[in-house]
């Protein structure tokens, strides 16, 4: 079993599809992951299952991979804490979760924005570039930079899940470069393809962070680190001032007003 724990999940699921189904039952959605390079032991650890669930999961996986092996019944490590019923974030991590809300409000508007662009005779370049400005300066610079420069420094940055987050950030930046190109050349199809690509990527990315990554990082932080990270995030926010988040919140409100009206029409 030690060997399996140190293997990449993609290889395990390719060879034993049943393992993907078992993980699904426990709310561990590795099967559709395009990367799949997380090690089995990290996946099990990161989801913080209660000891009984974890032992049963490992038992079932081992049985699926070695059906003929006499696998011992699960041993439960009762010294491990059970998973909390609701996610409780530390204050600095909670601030990052709260910032996701504004980003999700833009993501929710993207279908309306695309539909508006498709119906317009000419691409509303100003609208597209203002959305890009939000994505680059709020979602990326203000929010993702705090993750990359502060939060991720408290864990092993070489961990697969952190590498996947970095990759998501880069893929998002590439989509946005394409959106800008589309806006400059008036190419509606290019804007549509890449803004939807960005929406799908960020929707999954935020879900992974809120439900898996952030709680996993929080569980590893000492009180001292929580206080230190809180101070660093506050300093980062103070360096850009209150005006920046306020400006982008007003922008989203304006978009919501505009497109709610469009939908009503």
């Amino acid at each position, binding site marked *: 079993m030690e060997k399996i724990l140190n293997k990449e999940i993609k290889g395990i699921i390719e060879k034993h599809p049943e393992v993907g189904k078992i993980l699904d039952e426990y709310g561990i959605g590795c099967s559709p992951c395009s990367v799949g390079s997380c090690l089995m032991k990290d996946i099990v650890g990161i989801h913080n299952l209660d000891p009984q669930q974890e032992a049963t999961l490992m038992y079932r996986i081992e049985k699926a991979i070695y059906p003929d092996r006499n696998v011992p019944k699960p041993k439960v490590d009762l010294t491990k804490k059970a998973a909390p019923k609701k996610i409780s974030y530390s204050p600095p991590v909670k601030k990052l979760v709260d910032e996701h809300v504004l980003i999700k409000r833009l993501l929710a508007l993207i279908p309306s924005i695309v539909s508006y662009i498709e119906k317009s005779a000419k691409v509303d370049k100003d609208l597209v570039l203002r959305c890009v400005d939000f994505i680059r300066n709020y979602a990326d610079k203000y929010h993702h930079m705090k993750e990359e420069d502060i939060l991720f420094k408290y864990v092993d940055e070489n961990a697969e899940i952190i590498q996947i987050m970095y990759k998501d950030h880069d893929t998002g930046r590439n989509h946005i470069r394409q959106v800008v190109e589309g806006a400059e050349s008036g190419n509606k199809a290019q804007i549509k393809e890449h803004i939807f690509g960005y929406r799908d990527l960020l929707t999954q990315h935020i879900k992974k962070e809120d439900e898996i990554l952030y709680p996993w990082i929080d569980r590893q932080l000492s*009180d*001292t680190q*929580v*206080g230190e990270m*809180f*101070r660093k995030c*506050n300093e980062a926010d103070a360096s850009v001032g209150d005006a920046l988040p306020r400006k982008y919140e007003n922008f989203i409100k304006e978009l919501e007003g505009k497109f709610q009206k469009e939908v009503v029409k």
Partner: protein
Amino acid sequence: MSGCPGSRTMDFSEKEGKSESETGKRQSQLRQWPIQFHLVSPLAPYFQQKDVLLVADCVPFALADFHKDYLKGKSIAIACPKLDSDQEVYIEKVKALIDDSKINTLTVMIMQVPCCFGLVQVAKEGAEKATRKIPIKQVVVGIEGGVLSEEWI
């Protein structure tokens, strides 16, 4: 079995303990004096930029591993929100800890009895008056010694 849960008489001397290692001597993790909240100065050197515990008097008696699991590496002040007088002084001291001693975090440890939540209120009021913001954690300890909850507030 009626009356205030904070002072209700209960006897759990018959409770069976899990097998625990009682061998060896443990070192105290206390690194300061005084500790009573009326006696400590919030500007004391042992509070400067530290992680601080504000602990209800009864907690260390209930929680067997208090020194190892909570006190280690931290500074402390103790108080009783039910019996102590002049608690507005406590609020000012919390404010001074945050603003003047620039403490890193504050963990308020209370017993599960309702009167103990007054200490959380003291911490919250002091934090609201302070200019700096810091993370505050609440730990609730059961009268039989277990940690019932631990969360940032």
